[in-house]
């Protein structure tokens, strides 16, 4: 009988142990915690499903945070996809400066979120912000718009932050996809008389479907976990510590989770229930978005 080769298991062991200790155990512990009431320090009290029941029946702020998260995602994801593929197409076909275009567009993606929060909070400040200043000088406004304190414009600014940050990443992924498309197809289409717009719409976009599926699914997963941008937009100033933006219009699910755990309250059990509900929502939406974007063949 052939002896079992133990070496592969041995070399995989550090990862497996680390995974068990720092990933699987906390994940399962959070699930257990969601059935308790606990402030993180005193004794835990078992409450069964009460945290979930309360969350779904008696916490309008949870639904508001979920609504805000979806609205911001709807505002940002399709626009970023469209802009990403367009910019990638233009960059891919640029005769000169391709590297420069790639670098410039990718820079926001590697900029620290704190800096992005500062930049946008200064830009959209209603009195001293560059945006209002520009509109007033152009004669388009008499008085500055209260961008960050209007519920809808607050969401729009957050969506803009996401688009600005992720455009470069989307562009790079689309560029990688475009490189993989055979030039023969383009040449054949050109011989058949296809123009640049037709090449883009009939060849590039359909052949990038897998890339789009990947970007949509990952954007929905990360979009549901949105936290950095709104938090930093409203916490970037030295003295400003507004939670959730104006009338909670910028409160996202993860911000609500953090607020319940560490800021307004110390309800670790309740926060764990929020995290698990979000986990279920992410799974559902990942499946739905995959089925919708992948087409019949892939989703079968």
């Amino acid at each position, binding site marked *: 009988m052939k*002896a*079992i*080769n*133990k*070496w592969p298991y*041995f070399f995989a*062991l*550090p990862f497996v*142990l*680390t995974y068990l*200790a720092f990933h699987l155990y906390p994940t399962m512990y959070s699930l257990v915690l969601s059935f308790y009431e606990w*402030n*993180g*320090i*005193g004794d835990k009290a078992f409450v069964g499903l009460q945290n979930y029941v*309360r969350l779904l029946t*008696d*916490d*309008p*702020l949870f639904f508001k945070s979920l609504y805000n998260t979806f609205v911001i995602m709807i505002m940002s994801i399709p626009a970023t996809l469209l802009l990403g593929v367009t910019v990638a197409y233009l960059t891919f076909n640029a005769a000169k400066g391709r590297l420069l275009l790639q670098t410039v567009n990718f820079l926001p993606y590697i900029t620290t979120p704190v800096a992005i929060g500062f930049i946008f909070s*200064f830009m959209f*400040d*209603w*009195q*001293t912000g560059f945006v209002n200043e520009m509109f007033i000088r152009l004669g388009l406004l008499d008085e500055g718009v*209260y961008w*960050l*304190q*209007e519920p809808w414009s607050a969401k729009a600014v957050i969506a803009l932050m996401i688009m600005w940050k992720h455009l470069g990443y989307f562009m790079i992924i689309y560029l990688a996809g475009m490189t993989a498309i055979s030039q023969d197809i383009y040449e054949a289409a050109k011989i058949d008389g296809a123009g640049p717009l037709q090449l883009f719409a009939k060849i590039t976009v359909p052949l990038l479907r897998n890339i789009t599926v990947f970007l949509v699914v990952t954007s929905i997963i990360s979009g549901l976990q949105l936290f950095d941008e709104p938090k930093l937009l409203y*916490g970037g*100033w*030295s*003295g*400003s*510590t*507004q*939670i*959730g*933006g*104006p*009338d*909670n219009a910028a409160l996202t699910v993860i911000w609500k989770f953090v*607020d319940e755990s*560490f*800021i*307004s*309250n*110390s309800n670790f059990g309740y926060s764990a229930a929020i995290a698990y509900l979000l986990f279920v929502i992410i799974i559902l939406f990942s499946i739905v978005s995959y089925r919708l974007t992948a087409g019949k063949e892939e989703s079968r």
Partner: protein
Amino acid sequence: MSFGKGKSRSSALLLFILFAMLLAGCGAGPAGSNTDSQPSPAGTDAGTAEGDGAKDPKQISATIKVWDWDEAFHETMIPEFNKLYPNIKVEYTVVSNTDYLQKLQSGIVSGSDIPDVIMGEVGYRGKLFDLDILDDLEGAPYNFQREQMLDYVVPLMTNSEDKLVGIEQQIAVAGLAYRRDLAKEYLGTDNPDEIEGMIKDWDAFTAKGIEIKEKSGGKVLMLPGLLDAYFVLNGQRGMEYIKGEDIDLTGKMKPTLDRLFDMRDKGIIGKLENGSPSWAASFASGDYLFYPSATWSPKWQVAANDKDGSGRWGLVAAPEGSFTLGGTSVSVYKDSKVKEAAWAYMNFCYLSDEGTKIAAEKFGFLPGVKSFYENNRELIDKGSEFDAFFGGQNLSKYFVEKVVPGVSGQPQTKYEAIVTQAFKTLYPLWTKDASIDANTAMSKYIDEVKSKARDANVK
């Protein structure tokens, strides 16, 4: 390939080491453990405000951990403290006040490093006091007595069970800082006593505001924003409106909202958000006459935001009484293994005659302990570093004589931060939309607090 016996042994050893490393990473030692602690003899009376009661300071040998955001303070105080307590090593870690409570909770849950001396900034103090992690300073080994502190700070230092779990780092009473140039132009004087007479109550303040607004053609207003006015009005009404799970928000806030909305509707308050870039810039631009100003504000707000404004500022008591603005309590972690040493340091820095004198001279800190004001009259008369910035006005003297007597401390509960946060969430909408009146705002305010304090009965 298969393992030989030797290989088998070495791989088992490696496996064991890996496990050991992992377990070591997961399981830190008991919270606050400190092996070099040698508690001082029982019955140490370090609790006396004079700080000279420890039987023999040199006998206490320990290392204490302090988390604070004020690095400069500890850099100055530790060497002075070590002259009296040479065997107590103080290790401070700079932790931002905005992350403080989160880091503390995470540390306690994970069993990692916990400070022996804990700071409680007013923004999260109620929550901190509610966590039941702080020692009662009126019990052993501290035996401190609340009567030693100024009366108004006692509610700020006690938890909902009336246990004294913190001492005030410095008094944070507040009045109104004003621009002398604007006061001269629109009020005809920059003398604080005369201005105080002109704005004795809020009706007079509002009337003057309307007058100034008209005179300046709407350019100069009384206060920069609703939150600034809220700090004054709300701080003047320190009361026990939260009892257990019952929050009488209307009783506490309705008079404040009525007054706020009246001033907003009469156009005497600006539209700036407290802490925003435009708010900071307004100190120098001279569009607003008054700013709430606590003992710490001359350095951190006025001088910081109006760098060329030396001599341009004055301080006056607010209409209808004083208020508190900000402030930090100092406590001992209840599972600390070095309580006597931690208390010795706290006692030296914030209560003892030697320490408070140094803090007052170096940093302008006015402590919360009564004895300081009995023993150090000359320090108060001497003035502080920022008096020149305020046109030579003796700020310490003004705070002690004019502001402290009328102030009331707000009792701290776990819901205090939620009430303040809810206001911060809503006031920009009330600034923007003048059609919202005080009644509508009150009902919105109650809903907002209810949504965060779900176990509470809010009315």
